[in-house]
């Protein structure tokens, strides 16, 4: 049915947008109104100097995982479009599903690492909207991956 196709595509595009926003925007955590992380570690700027939060070994891991998740989501969308036109009748979209599930695993790992290790909580600290988006992207991509497993192509 056309409705299923449109729904699946809209879901995938939504996840891609969410992942792109969550990865690129520096708003995983806010401190006194100023948001920072993943790419900008300043908690506050006094004049020209930037107070770095902490040594960011784990932060680089989160960066890498989020970038990989976004990349794999985009790749799975491309593969979905490819497989849509080249798959046999009745075939399943395994390739797409694999990439989508990998993407959800990467997002999950990144979000978990950030939650568990995370920057030291100071007063007036709170999680930013990009962090929420990352946690939202994980179940969405997982569900989408499972949908691709049970999806079949019709003539």
């Amino acid at each position, binding site marked *: 049915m056309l409705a299923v196709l449109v729904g699946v595509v809209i879901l995938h595009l939504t996840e891609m947008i969410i992942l792109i926003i969550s990865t690129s925007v520096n708003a995983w955590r806010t401190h006194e109104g100023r948001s920072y992380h993943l790419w900008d570690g300043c908690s506050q700027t006094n004049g020209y100097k930037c107070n770095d939060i902490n*040594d960011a070994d784990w932060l680089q891991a989160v960066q*890498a995982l989020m970038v*990989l998740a976004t990349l794999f989501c985009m790749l799975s969308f491309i593969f979905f479009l490819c497989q849509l036109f080249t798959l046999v009748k009745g075939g399943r979209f395994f390739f797409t599903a694999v990439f989508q599930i990998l993407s959800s695993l990467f997002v999950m790992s990144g979000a978990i690492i950030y939650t568990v290790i995370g920057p030291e909580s100071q007063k007036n600290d709170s999680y930013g909207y990009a962090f929420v988006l990352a946690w939202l992207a994980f179940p969405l991509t997982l569900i989408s991956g499972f949908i691709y497993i049970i999806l079949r192509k019709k003539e």
Partner: protein
Amino acid sequence: MPLDLTHSLHSQVSPSLFLSLVLLVSALSQAARRGRQTEAMLTLLVLTAVVLLSAAPRSDAIVVYTGWERHALVGSDVRLSCSFFSWRWTSEDVTFSWSYRPDGAKDSISIFHYTGGAPYVDNKGPFRDRLEFVGNPARRDGSILIRNLDFSDNGTFTCDAKNPPDIVGRPSSVRLLVFEKVPIQAGVITGAIIGVVLGLLILVVAIYYLMRFLVARRVFSLSMSKHGKKGKGKEGSQQRQKPKVPLVYLSF
């Protein structure tokens, strides 16, 4: 180091250079007249090279080289290198001087001076008993070694070298950053993780396609020996299935 073409062309065109230029231009015109293309191109190339080399700045400007930034751990030693480029030979009156400006301060103090063949290190300032001259002035190297670094040594070190009569030039600065522990540079781990995962992905895909190719080749050779043209027919029917609007449905 700007290319001062007019200045160099006016001052440095020596008679020998002029003669060689004339010879090259005549050779070029002869080769062009005879229609020998390769010869003409080669002479043109040599001519351009000679013109460019002669137009290189021969002004009496000295260029000082130091690093841009140096990172070091607390308590360790750091070697700050300083070298210079000059068209003249290294004179005996070559001088090196280092000065230090702490982070946030406006003034700089002189901490090292080499002149008249002898080095003079700081014996009153912040680097007394910690500074050592490890350079070789004859080789245009004016490097210093600072021992037992502390956080208060963060700052900018400026090296000024003079090679009389080549004295016009800008001093060069190197910034010293003293760390508690060596920080992982931004992006190293990120790049490593992304690279490894993508590499594994490409490897898996390559292996998958290789297996499929090998299996297909074996199946093809088997079917060729047994069934003849039947195998090719099946592949053709598979490719015909390309609908205009492909539809999908869910099924467990």
